[in-house]
């Protein structure tokens, strides 16, 4: 029992952790420890290390958990890219030359075929064969395209343009009317109407068919559907809003916030211009949506264009802040005047640089202003319109500016604390001014 009691006694003071003697002073304990237990120190150190590490680990983990901080990696540049376009063009040019030649040859042959084409099928066949040499089919046992063997049901056929052998399934047909169109001879309509009774088309192999088809397609490539006109107009409006009007609006808006009431009509005009353009975008995109679309893809496209424009209109128009009324602006101007007078009373025309604000500076601040409005939190923004060379004056101006912003944001508690700050600075400033009277060499250096 007694032993246990002894164990449980709580010892206090500067105790040696090994022999449990109280030394009364930290220095004494330290000396004792060094003298008496120097050989144990390694052990202690290793313990300390272990605990230190454990502590560090725990602390680190806790930080990770509590602050919910996210790791931030510095912005990166775009990854590697490799272009193959040069090589691609080389390969293509060779091929395209070859292809153009082939197309020309095919068209010339077609022209020859159509010239004095007999209507009687037998005569026609002879005519065709005199112009294009038909390949001898005796050794050809399979269709070169689908590699299926020829037999009674799958018979050999000849392409009328190149003379090669194909099966029925691998051939395509060029109607005579289209053939004339291809060689630009519309005048021969009469002939086509006569021939309509008999075979009205040429049998072609897929390859020749493709050649002619491509030639046709290229003709239509440059045709632009109605949707393009509308779309171009929309983009024009959008660019005007984003690259011109919004910037102007923000400039004037900030001037208004400075209390310059003369800009009110202009701001109103810009605002209504933006709204009008947004309405145009809305109307145009709606018209695109209503366009008649024969294909599924174009339906999807128009729907998506409309969706994108609605988003665009929403984001621009809703982001425009409402203009302050004339009364509000005058109030701002009034407070500003009062502030200016107060400053004058405080001596020295420090606010001169502020009055002669250049527009470019406002420009740089206006973005901040807008951001400030859009964010939920509030924090004052340093306006660049303080350019006195005295650091204290600068500081004071900054704080004045903060007060103004805080007032606009209705943060009266902040206003109060800022004003206290300003008061202190004012006193400091006067003290310094008096001192500097004694020290003519006073400069901004300190």
């Amino acid at each position, binding site marked *: 029992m007694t032993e246990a009691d002894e164990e449980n006694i709580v010892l206090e003071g500067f105790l040696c952790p090994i022999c449990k003697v109280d030394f009364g002073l930290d220095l004494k304990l330290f000396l004792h420890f060094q003298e008496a237990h120097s050989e144990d120190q390694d052990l202690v150190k290793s313990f300390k290390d272990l605990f230190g590490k454990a502590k560090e680990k*725990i602390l680190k983990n806790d930080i990770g958990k509590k602050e919910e901080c996210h790791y931030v990696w510095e912005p990166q540049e775009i990854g590697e890219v490799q272009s193959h376009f040069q090589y691609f063009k080389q390969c293509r040019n060779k091929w395209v030359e070859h292809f153009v030649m082939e197309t020309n040859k095919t068209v010339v042959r077609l022209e020859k075929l159509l010239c004095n084409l007999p209507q009687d099928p037998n005569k026609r066949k002879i005519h065709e064969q005199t112009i294009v040499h038909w390949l001898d089919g005796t050794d050809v046992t399979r269709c070169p395209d689908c590699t299926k063997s020829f037999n009674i049901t799958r018979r050999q056929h000849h392409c009328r343009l190149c003379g090669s052998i194909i099966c029925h399934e691998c051939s395509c047909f060029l109607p005579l009317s289209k053939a004339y169109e291809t060689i630009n001879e519309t005048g021969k309509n009469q002939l086509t109407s006569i021939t309509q009774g008999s075979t009205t088309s040429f049998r072609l192999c897929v390859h020749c068919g493709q050649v002619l088809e491509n030639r046709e397609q290229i003709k239509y490539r440059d045709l632009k559907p109605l949707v393009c006109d509308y779309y171009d107009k929309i983009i024009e409006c959008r660019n005007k809003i984003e690259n011109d009007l919004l910037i102007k609006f923000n400039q004037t808006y900030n001037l208004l916030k400075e209390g310059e009431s003369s800009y009110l009509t202009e701001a109103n005009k810009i605002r209504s211009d933006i709204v009008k353009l947004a309405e145009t975008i809305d109307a145009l995109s709606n018209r695109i949506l209503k366009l008649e679309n024969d294909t599924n893809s174009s339906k*999807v496209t128009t729907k998506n264009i409309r969706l994108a424009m609605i988003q665009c209109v929403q984001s621009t128009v809703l982001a425009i802040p409402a203009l302050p009324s004339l009364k509000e602006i005058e109030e701002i101007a009034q407070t500003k005047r009062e502030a200016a007078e107060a400053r004058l009373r405080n001596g020295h025309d420090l606010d001169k640089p502020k009055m002669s604000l250049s527009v470019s500076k406002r420009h740089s601040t206006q973005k901040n202003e807008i951001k400030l409005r859009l964010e939920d939190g509030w924090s004052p923004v340093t306006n660049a319109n303080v350019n006195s060379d005295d650091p204290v004056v600068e500081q004071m101006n900054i704080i004045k500016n903060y007060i103004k912003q805080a007032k606009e944001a209705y943060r009266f508690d902040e206003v109060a604390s800022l004003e206290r700050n300003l008061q202190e600075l004012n006193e400091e400033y006067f003290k310094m001014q008096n001192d500097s009277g004694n020290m003519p060499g006073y400069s901004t250096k300190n």
Partner: protein
Amino acid sequence: MDLIQAVKMYIIKMTEDCGPGMKVLLMDKTTTSIVSAVFSQSEILQREVYLFEQLTSTSSSDSMYHMKCITFLRPTRENISLLCKELRNPRYGYYYIYFSNIISKTDIKTIAESDIQEVVREVQEYYADYLAIAPHLFSLNIPSCGQCLSWDPLQLTRSTQGIISVLLSLKKNPLIRFQASSKMSKQLAEKVKVIFSKEENLFNLKQGDIQPQLLILDRREDPVTPLLMPWSYQAMVHELLTINNNQVDLSHVEDIKPDLKKVLLCAEQDDLYKQNIYKNFGEIGEIMKSLIDDFKTKAKSHQKLDTISDMKAFVENYPQFKKMSGTVAKHVIIMEQLSNYVTKKNLLEVSELQQQIACDIQSSQHTQKIRELIEKNIPDEEASKLVMLYALKSFSKDSNRELTSLIQMLKSKKVAEHWIELVHDVMKFQSKIILDNENTLKNAKQITKRFYKDLKGVDNIFTQHVPLIKELVEDLIKSRLKEEQYPFLSDINQPSKKVQDIIVFVIGGVTYEESMAIYNLNITHPQVRIILGGSTVHNSSSFLNEVKLATFGVIKSRGGSRKL
């Protein structure tokens, strides 16, 4: 080293390269998911892309010559022949072609020869050939890497390409390290190395002082982690509801609104999700509750629109309000589903026991507790997963006997044969029995760990297990990763002691729980940047599927020491 940014920048560049005008994005199946992982539809619409098409053999023939076509494809044989076909009959005005990986000269020639109408304006390689799931996490969506515990050659190529594209998109030319005990890791490492030397020009990158390290690991080293029930939000959703390309299918839920049948879970677009992605189930429950209360008061205040200013405030807040109501509704449904599953499957009890088995706590009582839970009729999959964990973690002499009796019990409970087979498969899958000397080493390590844990106190009994990958990466950061077990492939005389950029790739997939571990390591070690990737992101059921396929054709049970 932000993967999402890397992919995003590539795609933004694509839309900028072709100038203003209406655009269509022509993709294949894989690139579609690559793009949709980082861009929302509205974001991409604002970049003038109004049509999304997939390049298939049955593509529509609607021609729209007034549109520019951004073609973003993987350089596969099939894609190239489809592209040639497309170019012979072009449907769009001009083509800007981007391949997500390195393409051969012959393929370019083939494509060039199909472009007879001269519609192609650009041919580039932009290396966005992976699914960026988080800034530090990528997946290649390979559900199964191979059979017979060796590579499917196709997937080996795909994995190589994936790693190469990650490296190029981040401009990294790393030293390669691999897990010596795994044949598959070695093969993959060698393949990557071959590409390095073949594409010298590409990999002639400016590097900082410290060369990055690529560490290739094999899932077989740690089959335990994917079997455990995770409790952080993202991992839990994946385990219980399955996240597929950032989408969660909720169509099985009764009376679900049509717009919630398939919901998108994307941290880039959903702030609520982004903030809570790594929070645990309990925390999210509370956050949800406060959110709903908040939401209710807001909804109420909108109900009275007496004055003009009320109305104005409403209109101004309306889009945000609507958006918020959508997100909140989505997460409420998900949370509801999760908590249903937790009760239905008895997951709290199951998970506690899982953790005890995985961390070797009170090991003498494991079999007893497993029996009790099986008696409680927990679902087949949970019961057999417990037995699998036991099989993986117990090495005592009589564990064989215990295991046999546990399996007998599963059989008597009429657990489907499929699950019992999986127990055997998992054992075949595990890379090796831990050797004796290693065992003691590991024990020492565990004792120190226990010591730290005791200092800290166990704060959550459901999340005690630490994934192996976390320990490995921590060792790597401290330059303590053993070179015998994880050798360098590159011949370097003296690897620098310092580590800065680390890219880890796990053959056989990673889990969201591991992703969270890496995320936390990135926070606690601001001097290093770690990226984790895997052939896929597994939950327990997809992992077991992979195990099933991987061990197909493997006859002998591991080491032959444990016959069942």
